């Protein structure tokens, strides 16, 4: 092992300490992945703004924060159950799984009325009970991993696991609540999630990262999603106020599947989402929605990569945001259409409204097309609330602040109205206005 990068060495020292202190039950399959990642991690440099993919997102705060990788002891910190569920669904029946600093908290979770064939819960536990499922899918969605993904491989001992077998429809949404933070230290919380949805099966999952205290904590996630033939999957990924989050979602879809992904960053402190989807079969329909509303010095960066590896697929990507104060957002959307992927339909748009002079968006749409019979469009706009529209509303006697809220709602309607769970739609709507200090409409 070379002494190449100091920060990597620091984390490897932390890894050695952490391994000794962690719950002894968490050895086995996952520890093997960690051991195997050590050398790769030592050689893998953390990105700087000189790297093209990180030009607009500076991770120096992360590097400076001297984070302590979460251990099983952090699991034991006291919790107020009401605060755990303050942002979860209340009037909609749902399955709730709580992860505390990365560890599954069965006591706070509620799993009921579930088809007996569905397997869900803790990656750690189920990897021991069903090693065959893990061998096939776990950590298999991509070969070359980034530094943060390798960091996740080192420290993630648990995460959310879901297996929906062939022809099974899970009616209730599944909420995965990640509580981040303890009372004394800056934590690095690593979770590795795996979702397998078999042929003609259907499921909806809501991920939520909830901050438990005011320390500087980072949630480093790695989520792998495998959608089988004709599967129907909805994923909602939401960040609570003040959270720091860096991670990757890898999606592999098979023919005829229908996939909907939503990414919400509503007043999150620092977010970098990497979303990579591979369309590995024909006649797939996939929608990727993003919504970001940021204020003060908040920063959100969405990097998406959609790979049309097979012909006759449809994808639609819509990312919309509203930025105020000194907040910053980044959008990078790449669509790759491979040589034989004829009859591809791929649409992408990124639109941002800036409510202040100091807010900033860097947007970079990219199309890479190797097939000749395709329909692909992309576009990015940045602007202010439309003055003529504002006048129209005000001219009906409506005060300016409500008129502004109406235009914000109108601008985001395309994303908010696409949310398929009514209560979640209302919650997101509420958080949009709350996060921008605007009157709710």
């Amino acid at each position, binding site marked *: 092992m070379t002494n190449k990068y100091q920060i990597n060495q620091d984390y490897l020292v932390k890894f050695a300490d952490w391994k000794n202190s962690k719950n002894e039950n968490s050895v086995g399959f996952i520890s093997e992945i960690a051991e195997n990642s050590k050398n790769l991690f030592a050689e893998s440099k953390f990105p700087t703004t000189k790297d093209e993919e990180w030009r607009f997102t500076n991770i120096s705060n992360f590097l400076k924060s001297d984070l302590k990788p979460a251990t099983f002891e952090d699991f034991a910190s006291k919790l107020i159950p009401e605060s755990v569920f303050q942002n979860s669904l209340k009037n909609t029946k749902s399955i709730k799984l709580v992860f505390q600093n990365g560890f599954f908290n069965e006591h706070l979770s509620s799993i009921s009325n579930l088809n007996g064939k569905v397997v869900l819960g803790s990656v750690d536990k189920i990897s021991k009970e069903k090693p065959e499922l893990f061998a096939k899918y776990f950590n298999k969605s991509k070969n070359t991993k980034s530094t943060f993904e390798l960091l996740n491989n080192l420290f993630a001992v648990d995460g959310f696991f879901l297996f929906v077998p062939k022809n099974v429809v899970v009616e209730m949404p599944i909420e995965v609540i990640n509580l981040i933070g303890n009372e004394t230290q800056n934590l690095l919380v690593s979770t590795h999630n795996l979702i397998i949805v078999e042929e003609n099966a259907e499921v909806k999952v809501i991920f939520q990262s909830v901050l438990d205290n005011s320390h500087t904590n980072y949630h480093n996630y790695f989520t792998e999603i495998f959608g089988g033939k004709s599967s129907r999957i909805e994923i909602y990924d939401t960040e609570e106020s003040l959270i720091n989050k860096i991670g990757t979602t890898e999606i592999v879809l098979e023919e005829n599947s229908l996939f909907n992904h939503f990414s919400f960053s509503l007043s999150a402190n620092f977010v970098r989402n990497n979303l990579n989807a591979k369309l590995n079969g024909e006649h797939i329909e996939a929608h990727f929605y993003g919504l970001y509303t940021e204020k003060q010095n908040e920063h959100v960066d969405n990097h998406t990569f959609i790979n049309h590896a097979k012909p006759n697929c449809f994808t639609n990507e819509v990312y919309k945001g509203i930025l105020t104060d000194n907040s910053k957002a980044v959008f990078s959307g790449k669509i790759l259409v491979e040589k034989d992927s004829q009859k591809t339909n791929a649409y992408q748009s990124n639109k941002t409204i800036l409510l202040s002079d100091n807010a900033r968006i860097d947007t970079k749409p990219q199309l890479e097309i190797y097939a000749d019979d395709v329909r692909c469009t992309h576009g990015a706009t940045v602007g202010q609330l439309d003055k003529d529209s504002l006048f129209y509303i005000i001219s*009906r006697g409506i005060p300016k602040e409500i008129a502004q809220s109406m235009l914000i709602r109108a601008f985001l309607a395309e994303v908010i109205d696409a949310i398929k769970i009514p209560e979640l739609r209302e919650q997101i709507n509420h958080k949009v206005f709350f996060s921008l200090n605007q009157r709710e*409409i």
Partner: protein
Amino acid sequence: MLSIKNLKAKVEEKDILKGLNLIVNPGEVHAIMGPNGSGKSTLANVLAGNPNYEIIDGEVEFCGKNLIEMSPEDRAREGVFLAFQYPIEIPGITNSTFLKTAIDEIRKYRQQEEMSPKEFISLIKEKAAILEMDNSLISRSVNEGFSGGEKKRNEILQLLMLNPKLAILDETDSGLDIDALKIVSKGVNAFKSKENATILITHYQRLLDYIIPDFVHVLYKGRIIKSGGKELALELEAKGYDWVKELAEDEE
């Protein structure tokens, strides 16, 4: 009700209104006609308080108050309504939310109680029926996906719901087929009363077959160059604008 004296206004550094005078009394319908670029829409926008238009000189008094000093929202609350030539779409905000908000804000300004939801629903149904609008339109987003004719009809629905003292209709007839024109006219005629007044801004005479004006004014180069009764509109229709333009230029 409305008294405009020597009104001069500009938009984007271009002088449009160059000393316009007009008096409108309760119960009257005034048609303002004129060729393109004469300042018709500017007049409508200036009266409603569009911040893109700058008033250089003149006075506008509305029900005894100085209109120019009022914010656009207060003008609406005092009873000025502009039916837009190009109504905007507001996705995600339903017609009923939009109108209920507007009505309650106007009532708040007048120190009246909010309208009850029940009262609101029966009122909007009654007004929508006049305009032969489907009830489903009430729960649809404001103007979203509406055809040109539906948008204009929706403007008249707003007019009937807000029931202002002064209605200014900016080219409401443009882009309407004859059936839609009749329905829109029916709505405006239902609005008309002895207490309120209407200013119709139009390029064509045909609207005036359905909404009979008490006065017709010809606006040209930012000034009213000729006024008359409804027969003036017919004369303009028959002879075009050239003869009034010549009259105006002779005067200069």
